[in-house]
């Protein structure tokens, strides 16, 4: 395995860092709100990825939005925020409203689909989207386009046969696809020792003779740098890449899970100390990219924006019940 430890960009623009920071805050606030709305009985279900914000926002910024194909998984609130889906749109999904852009109120929340941004529909079935990523990348290569496909998944997905089949197919054809794993150490309750005999997901790259990179998934700039290098290598025709961002989910698997049954509070406390948002804020303050006052104002603004989006989305129209019959097949066929 090759580890990518390139130096961070020395003079990356402040504007980019401020955007990333804001998106991480939006993602966290929105995710916290979605869980709270479930606890208040206002949303039937929530699945989010608090703690993954650096991995998600950092990697999404390395994509070419609207050009590259993206297959996010259900934790990827940060990816979608960074790609430009509005909190209101995400909340329309939470409340299963008619204007939910992902599925018109059909799918569980955070099961993304957004054709305009080349975000590809996915199911709840773990790893089933990885062969889709390979097929999309095959079509890109066949046309000679410079698109890259990025597929997101957790480390539990690497146990599925579709993970192997997708990596095998992609490497045989040297396809422009980045397999991006957000390794948070748990597949619901199962720790990585129950999922794999290797220490790192990136070690699995050896079986395909491709580069596997492991990066600190709580360091947004490191993730950005690693994702960017891997994506651009793909764009240059150098074949698939496997990237593993090591992180931790600070919340239960979903609103229906009790993580106290399988993780210690001490472990959680340790990871809270490594919260990717706190870490990036400290960095931005130290570098003088933002001030304490600006940060306080930004947080208040984000909170207000999300509250407004909640009010707006919760009051939006439900789909007509009989629209459950639509879109089984093409309607103009």
């Amino acid at each position, binding site marked *: 395995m090759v580890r990518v430890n390139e130096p961070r960009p020395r003079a990356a623009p402040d504007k980019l860092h401020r955007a990333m920071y804001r998106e991480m805050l939006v993602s966290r606030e929105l995710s916290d709100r979605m869980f709270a709305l479930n606890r208040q009985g206002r949303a039937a279900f929530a699945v989010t990825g608090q703690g993954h914000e650096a991995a998600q926002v950092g990697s999404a910024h390395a994509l070419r939005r609207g050009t590259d*194909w993206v297959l996010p998984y259900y934790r990827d609130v940060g990816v979608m925020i960074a790609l430009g889906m509005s909190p209101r749109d995400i909340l329309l999904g939470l409340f299963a409203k008619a204007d*939910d*852009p*992902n*599925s*018109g109120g*059909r*799918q569980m929340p955070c*099961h993304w*689909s*957004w*054709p305009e941004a080349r975000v*590809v*529909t996915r*199911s709840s*079935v773990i790893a*089933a989207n*990885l*062969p*889709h*990523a*390979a*097929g*999309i*990348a*095959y*079509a*890109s290569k*066949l*046309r000679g386009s410079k698109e890259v496909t990025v597929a997101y998944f957790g480390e539990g997905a690497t146990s599925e*046969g*579709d993970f192997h*089949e*997708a990596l*095998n*197919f992609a490497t*045989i054809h040297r396809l422009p696809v980045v397999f991006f794993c957000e390794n948070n150490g748990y597949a619901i309750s199962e720790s990585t020792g129950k999922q794999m005999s290797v220490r790192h997901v990136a070690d699995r790259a050896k079986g395909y003779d491709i580069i596997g990179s492991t990066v600190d998934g709580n360091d947004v700039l490191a993730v950005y740098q690693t994702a960017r290098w891997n994506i651009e290598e793909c764009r240059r025709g150098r074949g698939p890449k496997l990237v593993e961002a090591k992180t931790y989910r600070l919340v239960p698997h979903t609103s229906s899970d009790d993580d106290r049954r399988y993780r210690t509070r001490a472990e959680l406390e340790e990871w809270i100390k490594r919260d990717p948002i706190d870490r990036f804020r400290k960095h931005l303050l130290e570098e003088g990219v933002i001030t304490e006052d600006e940060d306080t104002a930004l947080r208040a603004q984000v909170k207000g924006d999300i509250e407004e989006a909640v009010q707006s989305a919760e009051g939006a129209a439900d789909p007509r019940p009989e629209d459950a019959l*639509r*879109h*089984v*097949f*093409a*309607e103009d*066929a």
Partner: protein
Amino acid sequence: MTEKTYIDAIHDALWEEMEQRDAMIVLGEDIQEGGVFRATDGLLARFGPARVLDTPLAESSIVGVAIGMATNGCLPVAEIQFADFAYPAFNQLISEAAKWRYRSDGGYGCPIVVRMPYGAGIRGALYHSQSIEALLAHVPGLKVVAPSSPADAKALLKAAIADPDPVVYFEHKKAYRMLKEDLDGDAPVRIGAAALRRTGDDITVISYGLMAHECLEAARELAADRAVDATVLDLRTLAPLDRGAILDAARRTGKVLIVHEDNLTGGIGAEVAALIAEHAFDALDAPIRRLASPDVPAMPFNAGMEEYCLPSREKIAQAMRELAAY
């Protein structure tokens, strides 16, 4: 006139559509060397390895990759070498392809075709003989076709490739070289349209695939003997069923026999019988009768056992006589 076999018809449809559609790709196991049944013979030399694609021996990703290709502008026609090996791809067919359009609120389509050689009568034993069409016809979001003649094999494959939604195409292995006919010109066949093969006043026989051919032959023999004059309806598409044609055919005689090679319980015949019972009960003069393989897990290798299990022209004729005499 040009005589073509059933497998020729499939081959020619693939060839002609590849010529017409730059976005079309054929993929599967052993495709490049022509396929184990020769459906893709010569395609590699004509269209090249990027569009005529040998896949790893991995059925889930054959379908999964096809879904991805279709999402990014291609028209993939995947081959599962034997329908018996399709089960690893069932997640991709049922959870993914069938729900692609529905779950994206119409945002994404999934124009894939998955060809599956199916059926018994060739000493294929448990894992090279299965009829799995009812399992997939049960899944909303998938279209399922099973042609019974070279002309339909060609026309339905072309219709499947043109279709904006996922189509599972069942081709009967025994029909490949057994069925031949003159094929000139291409009369299109619409997915969802059954075909009335013969009209007669005594009974109605409903079938599909190779068994529809056997039913038609049995009906011709019985008519020649002036024994039974039968209407024969070939379903051609198993999902969505041509309900109007089924009910019309049932009403025509009031006595219905449904024949398939798939085992009895939960087969296509059960759905057809339920439709008739629900909507044409008043027209029935006899209980609806089904002739199908028994509910054994799969076809045995022994010739006598296989023959025992499979419906045949003789068994069909016998059932027709009994129903006519009711």
